[in-house]
């Protein structure tokens, strides 16, 4: 097992968080959130990866062939579905905000005009 996937996951998480904190546009911010989420994909896939193993489909392999862990792949699939839902909802919200306020700068958009 190498450290590379862990480093990539940490990097994606960090850069995404940095983007969210400094963002001045909600669409950019939502993209950064998606990047933070990609770090979880990388992390989960590297958790279940086995060197030299095949995909967990036994159609043309004899039973007992080493395969990567199918559980984490199922987790990642669920995660992707969740991510799509949340991103779609956020973009819809951002669109509605833009219709009403004419801007997507978080600095200018504060609940209750604080």
């Amino acid at each position: 097992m190498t450290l590379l996937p862990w480093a990539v996951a940490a990097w994606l998480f960090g850069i995404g968080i940095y983007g969210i904190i400094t963002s001045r546009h909600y669409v950019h911010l939502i993209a950064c959130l998606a990047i933070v989420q990609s770090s979880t994909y990388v992390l989960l896939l590297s958790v279940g990866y086995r060197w030299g193993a095949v995909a967990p489909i036994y159609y043309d392999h004899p039973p007992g062939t080493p395969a990567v862990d199918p559980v984490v792949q199922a987790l990642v699939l669920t995660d992707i579905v969740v991510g799509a839902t949340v991103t779609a909802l956020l973009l819809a919200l951002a669109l509605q905000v833009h219709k009403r306020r004419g801007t997507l700068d978080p600095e200018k958009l504060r609940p209750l005009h604080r």
Partner: protein
Amino acid sequence: MTDLLPLPVALPLAVAALLLLTSKLLPGRIPDIVATLTALAVLALTSAMTLVGQASPLVYWFGHWTPRGDLVLGIGFVASEADAAIAAFIALLFAATFVFAWGYFADIRAFFHVLMLLFLAAMEGFCLTHDLFNLFVWFEVMSVTAFALTAYRLEASSLEGALNFTVTNSLASFLMLSGIGLLYLRAGTLDFGALAQSIAATPHDPVEVGAFCLLATALLIKGAMVPFQFWLADAHAVAPSPVSVIFSGAMVPLALFGIAKLYWEIFAPAPAVRALMGTLLAGMGAASAILGGAACLQQRHIKRLLAFSTISHMGILLIGIALLSPRGIGGMLAYFVGHGLVKGALFMIAGILLATLAGIDEIGLRGRGRDIWPAGIALAVAGVLLGGAPVGLLDEGARLIDTAASESGDGWVVVAIVIGTACTGGAVLRAGGRIFLGLGETPGEEKVAPSEEESEKANRPLWLMLIPVSLLLILALLIGGDNVGRRAVRAAARFIAWDGGASLGHLATPMTVPTAAPPHPFVPWLTIGLSLLIAAHDLSRAQLPRRWIAFSDRYLGPLLKALDGMHDGLVGDYVAWIVIGLALFSLSFAVIGS
């Protein structure tokens, strides 16, 4: 009974799907009736499980994937008395909310009911599940429906509040998923019981403790503990009031109950996690209780005021969990239900103000509540209960937490309990005195409300809205006393002994906890006295000596203003605070580890 275990989740899901399919055909009030009946059916089911779960926990395996030896491949649901009781309370709160919101959402047809039933299903699943990834799925369903419900009005403020809520809580889900990934890496399983075995085999593994840090942070974000609390005030203030009832009464405390579940069912064998819970989480709870109370006093937007009071009370709830004893958990259970009943009623009263008086600004509404005086009586009762009066379930919970704290040598937490309770009770009583009695005149400049004009649809008679309010308050008043406290502690002892190993059939003997007299019997009187004093002080500012006002403005004013200014509505700042909180976790972990 065991075969009925998935029903509290499956029933609302199925009804939600049916309502969505037929939403165009159903006339007027049918969705209201169907949704209320569904919540009542879930209440009946889970109440029955509470009774059956006293003897031994109920275990259900989906698709009959029962474990072979210690190898678990299936997904299980487990309910003992405590899980089922919390699930039953949530169903009760939903039923009351559906009655309160009767016809309120008629113009979006059944969509409100569909979302609320999904929300209910997710919370029931969260209570009953015994699989970590399944827990994440319910957590996500809960979040996504909550996001949509917050933004439902599609007005500028509610959209901005919903955006902040969505961004911070999505980050929580990602942290949770990373934690699950790390734990799976070490244990290779997702069942709570099998995970606990793996932790017991390697109790000092830093990866597992790191996984706990990520999972706990995720739940603390949802549970709105300092420094993760920022989203809560924005979201609660702008969500429709029936939705705020569920947010404050069920969703936020449920996340903290999740921490108790994770600790006792999975992480209890790890000494580093034990130390983290006892120090960092107890500290966070105390800080939330005090800061939430202080911020609560500064608010004039009633729903925002109630939101900060929720943060304060959740801090006290977290202290109960962090004491790591059956009595502490028992206190947490009583406090969960007691707080949900009172806070639910209070958010409903806020909804009544929005519907009948078309306003939510405390100063703008001064003296205008005289026509709806029954709501004023309800507000006074709720304020007194919230302020720590020595009756009812909320007080029983606080007493148990106080007793558990002095037993484990953490007697200092009583300070946080007193300050938090007195500030929030005082703030609510002050608002009541101003709106319904016309007290507390303020100089001209403060009369302008800082928020936009708000109102909710006034299509329901006052008595219909008051029925669920009085029901919740009567329950909060009547349930209570030593008997209920003893039952809660017994349920907590069984929860601790049974829930973790239930999937593998390892049931420990529950601890018998002797009854103990509360160490500070004067505390309830002190807190309610302080609450009344704070309310009286704020209402009679105009009559108080000038020098005292100038003194308090000079020394206390900047501090309180800074506290309020931190909640600036800027999502980037909120995320920065989340990062600071994560750093705090890593730092404490490093200190404990060395």
